[in-house]
Each structure stands twice: as structure tokens, then as C-alpha cells.
């Protein structure tokens, strides 16, 4: 089953990923020049991915749309200030969406007790298939797999589910200090692996 789920046409997907990256880079200056069609194109390329992310963090399709609304208005206004030195256009969009979604959730005062975390220590085969659809994703998945399960889970909970140190500690019923040091060591190991 996992083998089948992972059987993605890698070459094609990589090409598509690279094309999208190049196109996004070209679209941002056009947004800065006031070209609505350029923003619409970014929306067509990225909105489903970003809405999925916002939905995962906020747990609500309505809030996810509010997040995207704010993100795309921000992109329109700030496209001229986008600096490639601060990350790829895709990573910039991801960052804007995550932070906006986290703002919304934290302002709404999410109750940890009501949060229902994913049970599995690992993601579904479909999710992993999406992750490994790019060369960057494959490298990351490879290095995450090399971490012990606890570290891997904590990093994922933080990034994709938008959990703070305290929330992770509460969810996993571990002391805060242990969570912090475990994640730090996990990040260090991840970085070393990705830089090899």
C-alpha cells in the first residue's frame, strides 16, 4: 500500500514544481506593478495548497478562507517588498499563510483541551506522497525519517498543525523543557542531514 501511494511520476512533478517556482518569481513583480491578472494566476497556482494548510491549522473551512483573503491582499500590497533572500516565493506564501492562520487561531483562544491531534505518529501515505512529489520534499522526508519518531512528530506538530511548545508538551504529556530540548536536537539533526 505505501509503495503504491508513493508511486508518483517524479520527473514530471519535479518539472512542474520548478516551472511553478519560476513562474511565481516572475508574477510577484507584476503584482507590484498593479497587474490583477498576475495575482489571479498566483491564486490559481497556490490557493488550494494554501487553503489546505490554513484549514489544517484553523480546523475550519470558513476561517481558512478568511486567512487566504488576508494573505492575497497582503501579497498584492507587499509583492514589491518580497525579497528572494528571505526565502522562495512558495516559502513566502507558506509563511504568510501559516502566520495568519496561527494569528486567527490564537486570537480565537484555542483551547488545548478541545484539540484533537492526529493519532498517528506518521502522516497518511497520501500525505507522504504529496511531500515527496518534489526533490526538496523527498530530501526533507528522507531526513525526517532518519529522526526518531518523537522528534519527527514534534516538528510536524509545530509546523503543520501550528502547535506551540506548551501545546505539544500538553498533548504528549511531557515536561516543557524536554519538549524544547527534543525539538532543538531534532532541528539540529535535520539541518545536518539536509546539508549533507
Amino acid at each position, binding site marked *: 500500500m505505501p509503495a503504491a501511494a508513493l508511486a508518483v511520476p517524479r520527473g514530471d512533478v519535479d518539472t512542474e514544481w520548478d516551472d511553478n517556482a519560476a513562474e511565481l518569481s516572475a508574477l510577484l513583480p507584476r503584482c507590484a506593478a498593479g497587474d490583477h491578472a498576475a495575482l489571479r494566476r498566483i491564486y490559481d497556482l497556490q490557493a488550494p495548497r494554501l487553503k489546505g494548510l490554513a484549514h489544517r491549522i484553523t480546523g475550519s473551512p470558513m476561517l481558512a478562507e478568511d486567512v487566504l483573503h488576508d494573505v492575497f491582499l497582503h501579497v498584492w500590497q507587499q509583492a514589491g517588498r518580497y525579497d528572494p533572500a528571505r526565502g522562495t516565493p512558495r516559502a*513566502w506564501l507558506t509563511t504568510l499563510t501559516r502566520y495568519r492562520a496561527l494569528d486567527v487561531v490564537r486570537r480565537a483562544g484555542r483551547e488545548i483541551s478541545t484539540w484533537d491531534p492526529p493519532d498517528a505518529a506518521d502522516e497518511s501515505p497520501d500525505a507522504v506522497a*504529496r511531500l515527496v512529489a518534489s526533490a526538496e520534499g523527498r530530501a526533507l522526508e528522507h531526513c525526517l525519517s532518519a529522526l526518531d519518531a518523537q522528534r519527527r512528530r514534534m516538528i510536524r506538530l*509545530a509546523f*503543520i498543525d501550528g502547535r506551540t511548545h506548551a501545546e505539544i508538551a500538553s498533548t504528549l504529556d511531557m515536561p516543557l523543557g524536554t519538549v524544547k530540548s527534543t525539538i*532543538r536536537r531534532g532541528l539540529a539533526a*535535520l539541518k545536518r542531514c539536509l546539508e549533507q
Partner: protein
Amino acid sequence: MSGAGETEDPRDTLAGEYVLGLLDEAAARDVERRATTDAPLAAAIAAWRNRLDPLADLAPPVPPSDVLWHRIAANLPAAPAPAPAPPPAAGNNGWRLVAIASLAVAACLAVFIWRDLPAAPPAPWARGVALLSAPGSVQAAIRVQALSDGTMTIVPLEKLPLPDGRRLGFWAWPRSEKAPVLLGMLPPDGGQVRYPFPVQDATPVMVTSEPGAGPVAAPGPTLFLGLMAVTS
């Protein structure tokens, strides 16, 4: 544990924690402040953003609703640099292309409907109301009332701008439709139009600037926009 060599540059660790979103509000703002003057910290943040970005793909993509783009487009402030020309008729707007055929038909029908509607007494009761304002403005400029007989009355609350040689398009985007539907060309002093859809909350209603002649293939620039609120 993985053993030796796991102690790392504290700056890099901080950057990783910041990008993961682990820091509380105050600590995160502090990192952002420091990054404006600490180039290695800024570079470490960028590197972590790029490294972790593929993790976002673990969340399954969710198609946005039909109205989301419309909400965004309607709220775009004026372009930072003056646009040399109005938005081109043909672009990459998928939904527009898809809708061209049906909208062209709708445009022809709409002219007919405007002419055909008698200046008769209004329908007995209001089903819904929408207040339309210019994008970026909070002032209502047009009141639209959906009536129980399947018509809408459109009442300008101020003098509507009508550039030379243009017409005002009146559109709605019912939930059942993939694209906005042209209901007719709006006389500057308002009018009445048939609305062959159920009256539903939050249906976008808009007035656009359209060319003076010929069929209308897709909505022109939005002049006024509002959402329907069901009243009965």
C-alpha cells in the same frame, strides 16, 4: 538519541524555532526585530523557511470556494503603481474563460429583460437586501432589494459614476453558478431586473463598468459590491 554533534549554533536553533512557530508572540517579535540588523540570523531564518516549506504539502489541498476570489478582487486597494490600461478582456482567468459562452447569452437576454420589465408596482414584500459600496469604501452607494416575485430593485443612493461610452453591468453570483451572472445593464438612475435564482444569504452582488456596446463576455472592473442578506 543520535549522539554527538547535536549542539548547534544558538542563532540557528532560534531561527528554526521561530520558523516552526514555536515561539510565543513576544519572543517571535523579538526575533523579527533582531533579524533586521543581524544578517546571519535573517539568513538562517530564510534557510529554515526553504528547508521546511515542503512540510506544508502534508496538508491535503482544499479547493477555494467560488466566491473567495471575488472577495479578494473586490477588496484589492488601488494598484501601488498606476496601471497603464484597464484590465484586459482576455486573461488567465479560468472562470472567465469557462463562463464566456453562458455570459454572452446572459448579456443578450439581459438587454431584453431590462426592456421587458414593466415600470409596474413593486412586488409585495422584500426577501433580501444588499448594500453595495465601492471597493475600499464603507459608504453604501446602491441599495438592492430582492422581492418575493423574483425581481430585484436597484436604487442608487448617490449619483453613480458613468465614464464616457461605458455602461453599468449588474451582476450576481448565486451559489449554484460557477461564475457571476449578468442580470442586465443598469440605468444610472436604477431599475428593476428579474432574478431567476433563490434569494440566499451572502450572494455577491456587484455593479461593474462595461464597454458601451456589444455583448459582455465577463465582468469588467468592479465599481460597487455587496452581499445579499436574507430578510424574510
